Each structure stands twice: as C-alpha cells, then as structure tokens.
C-alpha cells in the first residue's frame, strides 16, 4: 500500500546542508500498524511528513497507492492543531466542510466520530476548554473525518499524562480494529511502539536512517494482559537495547 523507495531528505544548501534522512526503503501493507521509534533528530518526523506530502523528497519516491483520492492521508499532529475559533464539532467537520460535503452528511459523520472517540457532550466546547488528552481525541476524529485509508500520527500522545496516554493507546487500537486503517505512528517511547505496532521500525540519528524493522509477534487484540506477555517484554527489551547501543 505504501511503497517508499530510496527516499532521502536534505535540508539547506552548500555548507549548511544537513542530511535529515539517508536512503530509506520500506513497504507498508494495507491495514498494518507501523510504529516508528527513535531518538530526537533521527528523522522519524521528517519521514512521516514526507509520507504526508508536507515536505518534498530530495531523492527517491513515495507511492501511497491511492492516486485517485484527494486526501489519501489523515494527519494527527503532536500538539493537536485544532483551530481555536471553532468548536470541537466544527473542527472535526472541517475536512468535510472544505470538500463540499453537504451538512446533512457531515453532521451525521461528526456525530458518529464523536461517539467513537468519546467526546459526547463536548461538541460545542472550544479547544481551549478541553484537556490535552481530549484535544488529541478531537484531532484524531478530525483526521478520520473524510475517511482517508492512511492515518499518520506524529508523537500524538507525547504531551499527555501517562494514564491518559495508556487509555488513548487502547482507544487507538480499538479504532484501528474497527476501521481497518493503515496507521503509521511516530513515538519516542519503546513501550508504546511495542504495544501498538504490528511492526516496529527503529531509526537512529546523525545521519537519520532506518536501522532495523522488528515484527511484533504479539497476539491481537492487545490489552493490559499484553504488558505481561514475555513476547512484548522481549520486544521492549530488544528495542531499548538497540536504541541505547552506540551507532558505529
């Protein structure tokens, strides 16, 4: 579904040239949940932005396998990026409003998403009246509004407290199971990556590159039980070891 071939990214020119990403190749199948983990500056966010088309590749190509769709990806930003002058419902409806979807259709879709994401009763609240976790829920609902096949998430839960984060992780898995979206999630937490992903990609910094891909052979659906599963614990340990060992 997503084919990434020899993609590189450099920022700046001449002496200021920085290699943000050295050649990355990967294939992501439809319905996979890919977690990308790595230290700051490893280019994981850059890779996500390249997939989203927010940056242009310096070299190589990215094929999303959905040329006909106007918006092939939904994007969840690190800090929600809800429009402060719009209510929760209006924010979620925004992708529909900007593609001429009639209100009768979009209102039904928004009601469905609000129920799915657990924001019932907050439809008319403004973003600033919500907690960080609730803002992120609204942002996920917005990304799902016009039903893109791919959901890209850039450290979506890094600004919420740990308990909320675990709840949101479980709800994200529930959404993934219900919708069958292909999800690519960037995180710096190895536990989160191992818990969510069907595959975990480890990236390293200076220069940013893909070091290794792990298959997360942990049964679905995942739950609190998963966190005691030896296969989960092994994967967390492996990921952590790889993250900590110096790159030669």
């Amino acid at each position, binding site marked *: 579904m997503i084919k990434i071939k020899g993609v590189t990214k450099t920022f700046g020119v001449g002496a200021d040239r920085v290699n943000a990403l050295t050649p990355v190749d990967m294939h992501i199948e439809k319905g996979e949940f890919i977690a990308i983990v790595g230290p700051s500056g490893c280019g994981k966010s850059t890779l996500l932005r390249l997939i*989203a*088309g*927010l940056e242009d590749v310096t070299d190589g190509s990215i094929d999303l396998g959905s040329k006909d769709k*106007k*918006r092939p*990806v*939904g*994007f969840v*930003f690190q*800090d929600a*990026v809800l*429009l*402060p*002058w719009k209510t929760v419902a209006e924010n979620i409806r*925004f*992708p529909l409003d*900007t593609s001429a979807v009639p209100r009768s259709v979009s209102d039904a879709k928004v009601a469905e998403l609000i129920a799915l994401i657990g924001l019932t009763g907050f439809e008319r609240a403004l973003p600033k009246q919500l907690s960080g976790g609730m803002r992120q829920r609204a942002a996920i609902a917005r990304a799902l509004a016009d039903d893109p096949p791919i959901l890209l998430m850039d450290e979506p839960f890094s600004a919420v407290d740990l308990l909320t984060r675990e709840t949101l992780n479980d709800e994200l898995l529930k959404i993934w199971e219900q919708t069958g979206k292909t999800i690519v999630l960037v995180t710096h937490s190895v536990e989160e990556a191992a818990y969510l992903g069907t595959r975990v990609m480890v990236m390293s910094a200076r220069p940013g590159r893909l070091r290794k891909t792990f298959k997360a052979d942990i049964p679905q659906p995942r739950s609190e039980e998963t966190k005691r599963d030896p296969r989960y614990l092994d994967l967390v340990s492996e990921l952590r070891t790889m993250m900590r060992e110096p790159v030669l």
Partner: protein
Amino acid sequence: MLLRGLLGLVGFVALWSAAIPLFGVPDHVLPSPLEVVERLGFLYDHGNLLMHIEVTLIEIFWGFTIGLVLGVLFAVIFARVPFLERISTPLILLLQTAPKIAIAPLLLLWLGLGAAPKVVLVAIVTFFPVMTAMLTGIKYVNKSYIDLADVLKLNSWQRFLYIEFPSAIPTLFAGATVATTLAMTAAVIGELMGANKGIGFLLATGQEDADTATVIAMVILLSAIGWAFYALLDYLRVRMEDRYS
C-alpha cells in the same frame, strides 16, 4: 482600579483648584476647574455644544470605518499578490511619513471646509496601522495551521477564509486600537486647520478669543472622547483575542 483612578482625578482637580489662589495665577492663564465646568455648561446652553461634538464624532466614525475597511482590504490583496505590495509600499510609506498636519491644508483646498477633508484625513491615519497589523497577522500565521491546510489540500481561497483571516483577527484589532488615538488627532487637526463646526473649531475659536476656559474645556472633552474610543476598541480586542487565539 476605577476607584483609584477616580481618587487620582479628584486629587488632580483639588491641586489645580488650590494652586490658583496659592500662586495668584491670573484667570486668562489658568481658570479654575469650576470655571471650566461653567464654560462647558454655557456652551451646552448657548453654543450648540452637542452639535459640535456630534460633528466631530461623525467625522471620526466615518474616517475610522473607511480606514479600517480599506486597511483590511489592502492587506488581503497584498497578502494574495505580493507583487502589488512591493510596488505600493514606497507610495504608502510616503503618504504615511508625510506629517498629517502638512496634508491637512491640501485636503481642505481640495475638499472644502466641510466634513469630507476630516474624514479623509482620519481614514489615512487609520489605514496604515490597520493594514500593517492585518498583513502581519496573515503572513505570520501559525506554521502548524499551514501544515493542516497542506494536509487538507486547501485551495488558496479556503486557506485565506478559514485559516489566515480568522487567525489574523487579534492582530487586526491590536492595530485598530493603536489607530484610535491617531484618528482622534487627525480629526482635530483637520478641524483646527479650517472648519465651521466641530470640537476642533470650538478649540480654535477659544484660542482666537484668548478664552482659556473654552480651550481647556475642549481639551478635556477630547481626552474623554479619545479615552472612550480607545477603551471600546481595547475591549473588542480582548474579546477577539479570547475568541480567536
């Protein structure tokens, strides 16, 4: 806050009243506060004071409204077509840096002694801070919103309508608040240069007649109107900041 402000005002008036007998200040230099109030009452009864106030307020209202609308309009056009901004900037700067007091006689020559030249002068001084603020607001829109617009593949009109314009509203109102004091000054300058109505006209008449009480009364009246005008816009600015950021 209001109480302390009031206290300061009462103290000031008391000092003013006390200074006159204490230093033997002659009446034509500094009349007492009571005389100033009496003069206001006299002008209200026999000098058609309300009509003059109304004339000045109408000039400010129309001038400010026109300046505001044109400022927003030009900012939008300049943001959409940077080439137009580049060729117009020197001209606008020239108009802006010319002392308003120097433009006023020209406007009076062209437009006569009525309200028109004052309205135009007020519009000119309102235009610049509003246009600059709006343009800045549009240009420096939050980068994350641009990302959102890119992901949603919004066209340039949608970007403007749904993202750039609303996010520039707080900055726009900051500019408009600054413009209130300029607008007040411009209206009075216009009236001082040549008019037969308005607060500035009364001020000029008071000066010609060496009527210090009238001059002081008009200055106080202008301060009060200026303050109210500023407070109104500042209140709107706070409301908009609350809503749009």
